């Protein structure tokens, strides 16, 4: 990469960075297994298709209560996350705070849930915290960066000799960032609904609980009903989740599903003082040469068998999926843009398609991919790429609405490549760098493909009740995410990419 210099913000820097990302993904492609083993997927796929066309609800009370639970966990989680994220964002200029935020958001919701389950059981508190904690990390990052990016002019005009940081913040920074914060938070709320649904995979009573159950039993009609319910919940949010009604909904969800758990202090103490202590250290009062040796062996074996291969697979899969996500987002964005789809109904269909694609759990996409393509990294790349590509494509499509083009601008392909793409490219890269760490985190739940990512080993450690190993692996994946986050932040600053357009 050429050293950033005075023209670092020019198109050449953007070209450079895109080029190197594409090259790195191509190199990664050479290293991974992309075999297609064709067989007879059609029998299972036709069952799935038939199920998708004939949704059936086996129990309305179950469907409705899991729908309500999904909404309740999401709303509670995001509310708590917004408050905590705001507090953290105030200190976002400190590396330590940033690292802390990167740490808490680098752990997948499912793993937070599994951790809390050891202490608080399968309770509503577990569900709330599993969403609130990683989302607080994400919102802190967004808020923090928005605060950094607000127009400094108002603050600069304040008298220098009597600075009052608090007033300065509330009068010159917050008002400018407020709109973007609100928009982004409401966008995260949609993500939280998906997360909440997915928490059902580990046993919380949300839509995912029954969706996963029906899928694993091959009851595709039932699965379809739960999936459509999730889609409907997300698709109609803008119709009934008004700002002014928010307090009502909040009171309702806290009344309906109060966060509570019977925490046994004994369990908590055991978890902290025994479960997560590396196995060779347990019950050792004195640290002597032998213990140190045992710990070294323990760590070395883990490094050889899990940490190193897990890191390699996670990075490879993440890098390829990231670039594929980017390409797909660029292909998909016209579906949600009035520049390319002029008719409202066409755009409506395009928009719905993108919502559908980003709502499909990656896990389901991976399963379908596995049936069609056989076990390799390919279904994983497709699953991560489609899901994240649809998310970025949707955001970019909406962003193009804000562009001011000449009245006589071209149409179609010329418009896309010569007018739109150059104007949105910075935004595109900004979104993509954002998804980077998300993609790394999501590699965790693709164990069905037998891809041994860090998440795969974390899941195995939970399955075998080796919480010491689970915690160590979580720390390693957090370190990876923090590094990627730092690198993305560096790139963002070098390329002067903006986080969130004020208009979004």
């Amino acid at each position, binding site marked *: 990469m050429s050293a950033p210099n005075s023209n670092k913000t020019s198109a050449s820097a953007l070209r450079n960075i895109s080029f190197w990302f594409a090259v790195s993904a191509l190199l990664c492609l050479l290293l991974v297994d992309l075999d297609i*083993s064709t067989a007879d997927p059609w029998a299972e796929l036709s069952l799935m298709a038939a199920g998708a066309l004939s949704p059936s609800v086996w129990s309305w009370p179950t469907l409705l209560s899991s729908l309500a639970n999904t909404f309740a966990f999401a709303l509670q989680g995001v509310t708590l996350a917004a408050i905590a994220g705001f507090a953290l964002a105030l200190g976002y200029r400190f590396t330590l705070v940033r690292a802390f935020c990167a740490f808490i958001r680098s752990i997948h919701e499912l793993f937070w849930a599994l951790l809390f389950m050891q202490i608080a059981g399968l309770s509503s508190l577990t569900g709330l915290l599993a969403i609130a904690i990683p989302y607080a990390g994400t919102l802190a990052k967004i808020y923090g960066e928005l605060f950094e990016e607000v127009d400094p002019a108002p603050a600069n005009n304040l008298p220098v000799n009597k600075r009052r940081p608090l007033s300065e913040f509330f009068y010159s920074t917050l008002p400018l960032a407020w709109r973007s914060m609100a928009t982004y938070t409401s966008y995260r709320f949609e993500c939280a609904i998906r997360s909440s649904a997915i928490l059902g995979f580990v046993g919380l009573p949300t839509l995912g609980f029954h969706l996963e159950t029906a899928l694993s039993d091959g009851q595709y009609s039932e699965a379809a009903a739960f999936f459509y319910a999730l889609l409907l919940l997300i698709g109609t949010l803008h119709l009934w989740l008004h700002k002014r009604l928010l307090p009502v909904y909040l009171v309702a969800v806290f009344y309906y599903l109060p966060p509570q758990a019977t925490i046994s202090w004994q369990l908590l103490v055991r978890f902290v003082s025994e479960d997560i202590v590396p196995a060779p250290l347990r019950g050792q009062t004195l640290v002597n040469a032998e213990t140190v040796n045992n710990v070294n062996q323990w760590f070395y074996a883990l490094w050889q068998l899990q940490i190193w291969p897990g890191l390699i697979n996670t990075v490879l899969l993440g890098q390829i999926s990231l670039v594929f996500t980017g390409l797909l987002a660029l292909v998909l964005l016209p579906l949600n843009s009035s520049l390319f789809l002029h008719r409202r109904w066409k755009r409506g269909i395009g928009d719905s398609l993108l919502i559908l694609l980003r709502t499909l759990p990656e896990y389901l996409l991976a399963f379908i991919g596995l049936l069609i393509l056989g076990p390799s990294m390919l279904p994983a790349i497709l699953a991560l790429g489609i899901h994240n590509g649809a998310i970025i494509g949707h955001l970019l499509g909406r962003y193009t609405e804000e562009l001011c083009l000449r009245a006589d601008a071209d149409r179609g392909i010329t418009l896309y490549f010569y007018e739109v793409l150059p104007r949105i490219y910075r935004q595109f890269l900004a979104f993509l760098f954002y998804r980077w760490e998300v993609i790394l985190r999501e590699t965790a739940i693709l164990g069905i493909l037998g891809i041994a990512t860090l998440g795969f080993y974390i899941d195995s450690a939970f399955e*075998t009740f080796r919480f010491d190993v689970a915690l160590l692996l979580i720390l390693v994946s957090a370190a990876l995410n923090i590094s990627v986050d730092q690198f993305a932040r560096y790139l963002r600053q070098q390329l002067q990419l903006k986080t969130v357009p004020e208009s979004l």
Partner: protein
Amino acid sequence: MRIQLLRNITALTLLFITSISSASPSVSNTPADTESAKTFVFSAIPDQDEANLQERFDKVAVYLQAQLDIDVRYIPVKSYAAAVTAFRNNQVQLAWFGGLSGVQARRLVPGSQAVAQGTEDPFFTSYIIAHSSSGIEPNDSFPAAITGKTFTFGSKGSTSGRLMPEFFIRENLGDTPDKLFSKVGYSGDHSRTIALVQSGAYQVGAVNYKVWDKQLAAGKIDSDKVKVIWRTPSYPDYQWTLRGDVNDSWGPDFQTRLTEALVGMDDPDLLASFPRSGFIAADNKLYQPILDTAISVGIIDAGK
């Protein structure tokens, strides 16, 4: 704007704090977090037919309630590990575990006992199944031809879908699955193992024989595409495991009464929930072979 913002934040914080502090017994939609100490709760590993678990086991709860004259509830869980965790946290006092999950649970909860097992469970077995394109034919001896194929286990914590098949594979082929097979997956459960091998996504898989037989009888399996190529030697599997401290809450002879109720279950409708033809008494010693195997395969650490 500032005042409104501050007001909102304060209101939300207060709301949150009050909702946490008022978390005394009240309405709740999640199972098991507001149980009074006297409700006896049990669970079962979700090994098959998950959609009907609640219906199947609610009937068992009604039966136990009538036999023991106490409140009995069933809570569904989503994974083997979750069943063990609920047992460890005393959210459930009794669980229908697999061989491996039972051993894990009893190690985590000292004093807990295997009290009953199905009539079939002393002689449980797994099937190795293969897609027709693999060209492997059924045989009485171990199918060494599976070497180099793609292979899927069931859940990582399953006895019949993971532990025992892995043990017999290591024993017969002398190496670990990830070295022997070109790819190793974990489908998550038995039904999906069958679906994945039947579709050819994986060429070979390991599955619980009961689940296979049931799906075969229900006509869900296309024998032209997937068949059983080998049956493992038998091993002890499922059992009812009870926490050791139940007598403190439900009376000094509770463990005995519960065991009698379980063994006395003879309603075919109830037994079909498991599915077992009946229950017999069991103890922890019966599962020593499972523990030894789990240690040899590396799923459980020796000692402790």
